[in-house]
Each structure stands twice: as C-alpha cells, then as structure tokens.
C-alpha cells in the first residue's frame, strides 16, 4: 500500500522542510552577501527565483486545471507596474519595508484581473480560452502604452516605460517568495480544494456529478495562478529597475509556458527545474542569446516527440519521501526482518 508508506508523520515533515529551506536560504544569503558570488551571478539567481514563481503559478492553470492560458505575462506585467508605481512613490528610506506590501498589492491586483478575465474565459474551452487569454495579454500591454493619454497624467509613462524603480529585489526576498509560493500551491493542491481543481482537468462531467462546483474551482485556479504571477512581476520590477510594456508581450507568455510544458504539466518539481535551467542557460551562455528562441523551440519539439508528458510527467518529488526511503534503507539494513511489519503497522493506524 504505497499510500501509507509515510514514515515521518505529517506535521513533522513540514517542519523538516522548513528547517532545510531555512538553512538553504541562510547559507545562500551568506555566500551572496559576502561577495563570493559576483553581483551578476547573484542577479541571475534572483531571476531564476522569479521564473520559478512564474512557471509554478502557470502550472496551476495548465497542469492542474488543464486549461491553456496564453496571457501569463499579462498578469506578470500588472504586478510589475503596480509594484513599481508604489515603490517609486515611497520615500527612499523606507523602500525595504514597503516592498513586501508593494509585491502583495501587485499580486492582489493581478488576482483581481484573473477573476475578471477568468469568469468569462472559463466558459470557453481549449482553443477559445487560449485565444481569449492571448488577447487579454495584448490588451493589457496596449493599455499600459496608452493609458497616460486617457488619464491626463503620467502613470505608466507609455512606451518609454518606468525608470529608476528602486532595486529592492534581493536573493532573500525572492526566495522567500519562492518558498511561500511553492508551499501555498503545494498545500492547496493536496487538499479537497486542490483535488477539486484536478478533477476538472480529469473529467469535468464526472466532477460535477460528484457535486464539485466547477465554475468556482476553475476561477479559483485561475486567480491563484494570476496572483503569484503578479508577485513575480513585482519582484521582476525590483530586479530590473526599468519596465516597458514591450518586455511583456506574447513571447514572454510563451517562454513561461515552455518552462511548464518542458518540466511536465502538473509537476511542480518539473516546473522548478526547467525554470531554473531555461533561465540560467541563456544567462550563462550570453553569446547564444539570439538563438534562445530557436533553442527553446528545438528543445520543445524534441521533448514533445520523445516525452510528450514533459520531462517529469506529473511526477512530484518530495524531500520527505527521499528521507523516508533512506530511513527504510537504514532500518532495513539493521533489522531486515522487522521492516515489513513496521510498514504494515504504520498502515493500520
């Protein structure tokens, strides 16, 4: 009975994960602030964190909910501009304190747009939803370009974009956001609400027959996806320092989608790893920059041919199951005979 094999009791598993993640943050932060890694590379690491959030959040809508939205950059840019506009109006001394709130505001506004766009979009299926969300991403971009003319004062600064945004995005805050995102999405998905989202992907008619409010859960998946994309956008604004609508076009949405598809739709670890690799590679091989989309497309074609479900399928890795296996192995070596009984006993409880 594979479902009962958990050796470490559940709440303890979270504590172990939290401790390990905390240690990772502490060590990495120490390495970066002591200057062992150059500023450039620490920037790349932050960027990786931002793309991890983007990929993991898009995975909620594609991998878990089973839709194909093509406007993820739209939610990202809403978060980015919201956070940037707030940060630019904050007094220079208090940017550090204000940043988390600016991020949250960006996430919430993106989530609100997720709700607005989600309710009509989710009545559509497949291709139609893809086209509608694609249109949404472009509309947001055009609005950002032209809204100043309508408002009569400078808010987004049109095509020139926002400049001199306080560069408040650090390794620490990025990866705290990564940790929160992964934790929240993980705990959401491993609950009755997450299972409801999955059931829609699997079979909508059966889900309704089980009494699951499919409209609510589709919208929820969409809003969660948009919210975290907004957070990532805010981090991106604080990382790059300048924003222009042209950076958030259709290709950005595709870039994020490629990460999710490559990692395996519905696999969180897949999204994390492919976001890491696909962000790090082009940065580390700067000279290949112009071939980036070619390489992306090639990788995608190859993966689709040889492993259509993505590199990780829907497999989800957990540190604890690794620990479980190690413990079992260790116990097994010492008292081989008792091993099976122990598992059985665990199962009975």
């Amino acid at each position, binding site marked *: *009975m594979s*479902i009962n094999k958990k050796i470490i009791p559940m709440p303890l598993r979270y504590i172990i994960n939290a401790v390990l993640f905390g240690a990772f943050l502490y060590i990495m932060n120490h390495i970066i602030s002591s200057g062992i890694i150059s500023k450039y590379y620490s920037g790349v690491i932050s960027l990786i964190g931002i793309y991890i959030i983007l990929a993991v959040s898009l995975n909620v809508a594609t991998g878990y909910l089973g839709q194909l939205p093509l406007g993820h950059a739209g939610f990202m840019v809403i978060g980015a501009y919201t956070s940037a506009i707030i940060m630019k109006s904050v007094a220079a001394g208090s940017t550090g304190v204000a940043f988390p709130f600016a991020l949250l505001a960006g996430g919430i506004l993106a989530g609100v747009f997720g709700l607005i766009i989600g309710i009509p979009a989710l009545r559509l299926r497949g291709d139609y939803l893809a086209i509608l969300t694609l249109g949404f991403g472009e509309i947001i971009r055009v609005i950002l370009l032209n809204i100043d003319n309508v408002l009569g004062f400078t808010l987004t600064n049109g095509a020139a974009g926002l400049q001199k945004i306080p560069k408040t995005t650090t390794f620490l805050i990025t990866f705290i956001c990564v940790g929160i995102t992964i934790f929240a999405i993980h705990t*959401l998905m491993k*609950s009755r609400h997450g*299972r409801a989202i999955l*059931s829609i992907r699997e079979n909508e008619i059966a889900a309704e027959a089980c009494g699951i*409010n499919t409209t609510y859960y589709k919208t929820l998946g969409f809003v969660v996806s948009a919210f975290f994309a907004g957070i990532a956008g805010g981090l991106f604004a604080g990382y790059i320092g300048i924003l222009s609508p042209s950076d958030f076009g259709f290709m950005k949405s595709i870039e994020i989608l490629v990460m999710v598809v490559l990692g395996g739709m519905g696999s969180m670890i897949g999204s994390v790893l492919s976001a890491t690799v696909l962000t790090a590679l082009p940065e580390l091989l700067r000279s290949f920059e112009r071939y980036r989309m070619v390489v992306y497309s090639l990788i995608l074609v190859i993966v689709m041919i040889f492993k259509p479900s993505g590199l990780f399928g829907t497999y989800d890795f957990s540190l604890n199951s690794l620990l479980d296996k190690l413990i079992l192995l260790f116990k097994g070596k010492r008292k081989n005979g008792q091993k099976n009984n122990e598992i059985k006993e665990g199962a009975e409880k």
Partner: protein
Amino acid sequence: MSKPKREPVKLVPVPSVNIIPERDVDKTPILEVSHLGIDFGGLTAVDDFNMAIGRTEIAGLIGPNGAGKTTVFNLLTKVYHPTRGTIMLDGRDTGGMNTIQVNKMGIARTFQNIRLFKDLTVLDNVLIGLHNEMDYHLGGAILRFPAYWKAERIAKQRALELLSIFDMQDMAGNLAGSLPYGAQRRLEIVRALGTNPALLLLDEPAAGMNPSETSELMENIQKIRDTFQIAIMLIEHDMNLVMGICEGICVLNYGKVIAKGTAEEIQDNPKVIEAYLGKKKEEN
C-alpha cells in the same frame, strides 16, 4: 439548496430480508418523476416518462439500444434540462437546479462510458467523491489548520471503508486508469457512494464483466442498499441481474414506457418481448 446533512452510515450490513420496499409506501418516494420528456431538435428522446422509487427500492430501467435510458439518467442529474415534466426528489421539485445542486440533494451516478479521474489514484477518486463531506475552507487548507488534518484523516478512513465494500482498499494507491475494467466500474460506484447519496443511479454497472464478476456485483448492489438504506436505480442489459435484484422494473422503447412491474410481470409482457425480439415484420 443543501440537503439536511445525513450521518455517514456505519458499514455494517443489515440482512436483506429486513428490507421490504412495500414498507416505503407510507413515506413519500425518494424520486417521483411525472410526464418527463426531452426533445433533441426534432427527435423526442424521452416522452411522458413516469416513475416513482421507494426509499430503499432497487429499480431497473431496461430497453433496447437507443431507447433513451441514459437520457433519463442525464435528465435526473440535470446534464440535460427536461423539455417537459417534473422531477421531485425527496418531495422537492428539482426544476431549475443544476447537476451540482442535485448531487448535494442526494443523487449520485455512474456513467455508461466510464468517467473516472484516470490520472489520479483510486483513493483520490473516492476523496473527490467525499469533497462535500469535508468542510474545511481554503485558508485552512493552505495554512494546514487542525480542521484540515482532522477532516482529511476522517475522509481517508471513510474512503478506505467504502473501497472495502468491493475489497478494493489495497488498490488505493494505484492510478484509477490502470485498474482492470471491472474494477473501474466498481470504483465509479464507490466514488458515487462517497457523495452520500439517497438515490444511486447505475448506468450499465455490469457491462464488460464476466458472469462471476456480475453475480458478485449483484450481491454487492444489494449489500449497498442494505447497508446504506438508499434507493438504487440501474440500467442494465444483463437480464439475470435485472430480474435477480430489481424489485420494480420499467421498460423503455423509443423514449416511451411500454411496461412497468415486477420481474415476473415484465417477462411475459408481449410488448416487452416485441421490443426486444421484434415483431415479424418490424426491426427490433
């Protein structure tokens, strides 16, 4: 819209002999359908369908291919909205309700062409059925409040209990799509039971099963009725099953009820024989 919360039943079978559908007579039937009909464009798929089912009755719905049996189920569960007629569930009109509301009121079903959550585990399939039996909210799930742990523990135990009806608890960790055909059909029944129904609709539960599986299924359907004290309505082409366990049978042909009654009454009805075997000149 929600039905009064019924206590989940303990899985101790009550002997079959104690349940006589006639005892239901003094109560309102769980389901009362009158003059139900639906047109698809020019085609009248179901017309003037009337039926009442007692609270612990096992009822059968039979008829040749294309007679409109599945359409009746789709009408009862609001996959389609009827063109004519009323459906009363537990004395309440279900007009204007949707599939979800009707399920919460107590109708659960299985599908003729199996609709499992294939890429999820057997346990997850049943837990999705138990979705509305758990009540912790979104924040409680994300922040892992004690309510989450408690509800999940109870639900998991309940799911394994329900799986044990068909002795499937050992498959809980397998992917639903990897199960053999018969087991998939049984899992659909378990998932439906998870929603704590008052009326269970089974669309060809024995399709694709071998005779020994079918006779086991017959016993289990009766066991389910006895344990949960619910009404069951089933569509089936296997006449041994229908005649063996259904207390009332309704025969459909071309969307119309052509006969109603007990197994004995149905078996000798010339209209039924004609519908199945055909008259000399007509096709079936």
